[in-house]
C-alpha cells in the first residue's frame, strides 16, 4: 500500500482556537475517502494544510512523500476543489476549462467539455454571473477532468439539485474506475455518498475520532431496546454511544462486534434490536465525543 498523505501530530492553532488538534493519519493511494464531521469540526483546515494553502502550527505533513509547501512537484499532482474558489474577474466558464490544462498535467479537455454539456453549463457566461449550482458544477468538472493523483472535494455539491448530484456521483465513479486515483470527499451529508466511500475519517473539535474501513463500520453498532436491567446486561463491558429512556424502557446504541452474534444475544435477552447505519453511527459518535471531549473513540 502506497501512502499519498501522511500526518503525524498535525496541529493548526489560530489566536484562540485549535482547528486541527494532534491529527495522525495516512491516506492510501487510489482509495476514496470520506472526510466527515460537523461544520466547524476542522475538515476545511485539514484540507487546506494537505494542499499547502496554510502552514501547520506544528506536527509533520507529507504529501507524495514530500513537504507540500511551495512544492511544484506535489502541487501539480493535487487538485483541491473548494467551496469558495475565486476566479479572475473576466473569466467565463470556457476560460476556466481552458486554463485548467496549465495546472493539471492529466487534464482531459474533451472530457471536460462533454461534462460541461451534461451539466448544462453556459460556456460563454461570466463566472461572476453563475448561480451557486452552476459554480458547483464547474468545480466538479475541474475536479473530475483534472485526473489529479490526489483530488480533494470540499462540500462539492452545494446548490446542486438531486439530479445534478446523482450525475456527479455517476461520473466520478465511472472516471475513477477507469483512472484510479486518491479521492477525498469532505461532507457533512453522509447518506448520499457513503456507498462510494472505501474509508471513513471522522473529525470533531479538530481531533480524529474515527479512521476506519467504511464497510467495517456498517452494522458494527446495534440499537437495543427493552427493560433497563436487560439493556444494561447487554451493554455490560461495551461502549454505549447513545442512550434514551422512556419510562422503564431504555434504548441504547452499543458498539458491537459487527457479526450476527450481537443480534442473537439481544434476542435471547428478549430485547428488540436493529443494526445502525453508517450515518447514524457517525452522528452518535460525534455526540458522544462532545459529551466526553478528551476521549478518542475506541471501537
Amino acid at each position, binding site marked *: 500500500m502506497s501512502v499519498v498523505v501522511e500526518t503525524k501530530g498535525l496541529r493548526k492553532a489560530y489566536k484562540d482556537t485549535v482547528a486541527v488538534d494532534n491529527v495522525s493519519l495516512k491516506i492510501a493511494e487510489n482509495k476514496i475517502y470520506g472526510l466527515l464531521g460537523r461544520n466547524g469540526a476542522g475538515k476545511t483546515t485539514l484540507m487546506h494544510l494537505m494542499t499547502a494553502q496554510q502552514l501547520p502550527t506544528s506536527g509533520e505533513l507529507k504529501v507524495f512523500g514530500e513537504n507540500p509547501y511551495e512544492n511544484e512537484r506535489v502541487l501539480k499532482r493535487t487538485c483541491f476543489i473548494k467551496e469558495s474558489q475565486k476566479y479572475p474577474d473576466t473569466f467565463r466558464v470556457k476560460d476556466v476549462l481552458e486554463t485548467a490544462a496549465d495546472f493539471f498535467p492529466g487534464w482531459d479537455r474533451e472530457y471536460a467539455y462533454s461534462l460541461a454539456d451534461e451539466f448544462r453549463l453556459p460556456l460563454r457566461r461570466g463566472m461572476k454571473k453563475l448561480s451557486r449550482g452552476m459554480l458547483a458544477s464547474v468545480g466538479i468538472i475541474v475536479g473530475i477532468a483534472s485526473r489529479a493523483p490526489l483530488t480533494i472535494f470540499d462540500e462539492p455539491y452545494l446548490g446542486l439539485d438531486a439530479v445534478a448530484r446523482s450525475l456527479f456521483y455517476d461520473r466520478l465513479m465511472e472516471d475513477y474506475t477507469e483512472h484510479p486515483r486518491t479521492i477525498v470527499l469532505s461532507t457533512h451529508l453522509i447518506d448520499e455518498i457513503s*456507498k*462510494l466511500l*472505501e474509508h471513513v475519517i471522522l473529525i470533531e473539535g479538530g481531533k480524529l475520532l474515527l479512521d476506519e474501513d467504511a464497510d467495517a463500520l456498517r452494522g458494527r453498532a446495534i440499537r437495543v431496546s427493552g427493560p433497563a436491567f436487560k439493556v444494561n446486561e447487554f451493554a455490560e463491558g461495551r461502549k454505549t454511544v447513545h442512550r434514551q429512556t422512556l419510562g422503564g424502557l431504555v434504548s441504547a446504541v452499543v458498539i458491537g462486534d459487527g457479526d450476527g452474534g450481537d443480534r442473537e444475544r439481544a434476542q435471547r435477552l428478549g430485547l428488540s434490536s436493529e*443494526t445502525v*447505519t453508517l*450515518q447514524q453511527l457517525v452522528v452518535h459518535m460525534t455526540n458522544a465525543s462532545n459529551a466526553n471531549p478528551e476521549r478518542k473513540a475506541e471501537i
Partner: protein
Amino acid sequence: MDDSRPIFVQIAEKIENDIIDGTLPEETQVPSTNQFAAFYQINPATAAKGVNVLVDDGILYKKRGIGMFIKEGARAVLIEKRKEQFYEQYVLSMVREAKKLGITQDQLADMIRRGENKE
C-alpha cells in the same frame, strides 16, 4: 443497498441469490466488479471484496483474462448453506416469538400448514 450492513456482504448475497434461483446458471460468467460498482453506485473495491468472498468459498472461479465464472455444483453447496441459515434465522426466532405469545407446538405446526396451503 442497506447502509447498516457491510456492502461487500450484500453483494456476495446478491450473487448467491441469483445462483440459487437460477438467474445465474453454473458455468456462466458473473458481471465484472466494475459493472457491479456502476449498477449499485458503490465503490469498486467494495464490490471486488464481495466477489472475492465467493471465490474464497469456492463458489466462483477466475478464468484468466476473461472474468469470474460460477463453479459447477455451486448451487447445491449454496442451498445446503442456506438451509443451515434458515434454521438460525427463521426457525429459532419464530420459536422464541411463539413462546412469548404462548403459542403451543401444535398450534405452531398448524399455522405452518396453513401458510403452506396459502402459497
